[in-house]
């Protein structure tokens, strides 16, 4: 094995080890809120008759999109912000015999896996919470996995970009200014079509990658609900992935070597 392969797998093993150790915190941090949302909107509102039961099938793909995106962003960005600025823990890994760019790739790979796992984990209790009258389609599984992978990559690359760009004092601001509007206008709780009565907003939200994540999962898991066409979703997510990866690599390099 070359030194790059050895160092890469050891760095990855370290991240998996740490992720396993922090699993409870990660789950609470990224999945509790979407699950509470599932309960309130999928159970309280539908059982009380304030929402139709069909809302459940529309909601689940959106919840998965939020969980995956948040997990990818948070598990990559949060440790990096501290490691680069405060604890400097990352220095030991930067001195591993491997190119700096591979360390960035490794960070993204671990983010991708954690985002995928989180999508799977949140789907199980959400499915149970929503009950038996939830109808999901299993006909587009291939496309579903492709969309899910593109979402995971976008969240990990976005996390790396954020983690290398945000100062420790700005973390709170990022939550209220970036993540909160991103979630509310991410078409997770309603389809993009529902914004038709707000034409300007409907165009503006297209800048939010979470829209494509929610609509993409909706189009592959619950295609009977209105959604943006899946090939368009795949193309947009692929472009977002490439752009974010390039930016993330540049940001990481400039952070790692002064």
């Amino acid at each position, binding site marked *: 094995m070359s030194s790059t392969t050895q160092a890469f797998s050891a760095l990855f093993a370290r991240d998996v080890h740490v992720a396993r150790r922090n699993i409870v915190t990660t789950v609470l941090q990224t999945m509790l809120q979407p699950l509470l949302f599932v309960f309130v909107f999928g159970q309280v509102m539908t059982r009380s008759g304030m929402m139709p039961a069909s809302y459940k099938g529309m909601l689940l793909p959106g919840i998965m999109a939020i969980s995956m995106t948040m997990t990818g962003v948070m598990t990559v960005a949060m440790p990096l912000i501290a490691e680069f600025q405060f604890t400097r823990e990352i220095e030991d890994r930067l001195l591993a*015999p491997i190119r700096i760019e591979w360390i960035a790739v490794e960070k993204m790979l671990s983010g991708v896996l954690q985002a995928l796992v989180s999508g799977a984990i949140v789907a199980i209790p959400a499915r149970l919470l929503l009950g038996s009258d939830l109808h999901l389609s299993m006909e587009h599984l291939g496309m579903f996995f492709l969309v899910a992978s593109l979402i995971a990559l976008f969240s990990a690359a976005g996390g790396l970009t954020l983690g290398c760009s945000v100062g420790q004092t700005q973390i709170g601001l990022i939550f209220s200014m970036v993540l909160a509007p991103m979630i509310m206008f991410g078409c997770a709780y309603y389809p993009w079509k529902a914004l038709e009565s707000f034409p300007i907003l409907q165009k503006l939200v297209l800048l939010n990658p979470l829209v494509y994540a929610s609509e993409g999962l909706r189009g592959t898991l619950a295609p009977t609900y209105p959604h943006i066409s899946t090939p368009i979703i795949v193309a947009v997510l692929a472009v977002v992935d490439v752009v974010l990866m390039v930016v993330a690599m540049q940001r990481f390099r400039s952070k790692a070597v002064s």
Partner: protein
Amino acid sequence: MAAMGMGARTGFKRDKKAPPPKVVALDGVSLEIQPGEIFGLLGPNGAGKSTTVGILTTRVRPTSGEAVLQSNGTSIDIWADPVRAKQLIGVVQQRPNLDFALTAREILLFHGAYFGMSSTDRQRRANELLEQFQLLSRADDLTRGFSGGMMQRLSVARALMHDPQVLFLDEPSTGLDPQTRLMMWSIIREYNAKGKTILITTHNMDEADELCHHLAIVDHGKVIALGTPRELKASIPGGYILHLRFSAAPPELMERLKQLPGVTEVRPAGAPGSAEQTDVYADRGGALVGDVVAAATACSAELHDVHISEPSLENLFLHHTGRSLRQ
């Protein structure tokens, strides 16, 4: 590992496209460090020591100049082949930077894994180091609650884990209690005795004097003196200081002291207005005492006490910069 040389000229011959650096941290520093030696960079805070270490350890990109490691007769340009360079070096940064998500043992094991050590080797070496650095009792604790001294010990242990040819220690004994400092010094000497090259930065003169075979004294990004500690100390004119105490010190005695051969300055050192305690700066130490006694006797005064300070790196720094190292 053969020799290690490095030249970093920052602020000169800049690439026209690159923006000029806001602060010139290093200005024409050129050092050649021989294999198997302990080389010290001595200077006050902000002198450019950490930047030099940063350039040699792939963390700070120089705006110009070159940094070269030599291993088994091959030259490795650190900035052209950082991966090979990283395989040969071990680094202890000034600030502890332990992986807080891992236990002390895991830190060593993962570090070994980054460098491709086999599982058996990693376990064995980690145990040896934990024992040597007196960390076995806390080996399986997360390091967040470790004291500063323990963190520093573990940082050094981690840098030694993959048995690097060149070890960089940036201010290794800052904040350590005297006992741990002595332990650290003996570990550094022991590692050097295996033929390893060590570069150490410090603003502690005793440390530089005690440990280093060669020293570069740096200030404001420039090397102001280079040599063995002994050579450097011998290079100061009037490097000795005689701290004297007389029964009485009339002005006449002060005049006589100033005229003694080799004396560069006579300075009252006691309470203001009293000259009983006097410091004499001279190029000789003990050899001057006879003349001092004769001068005192001639003025009907008696020499009560004498203490001789040998030439020190502190005096050398003062001589070159007009400032104390501690300023």
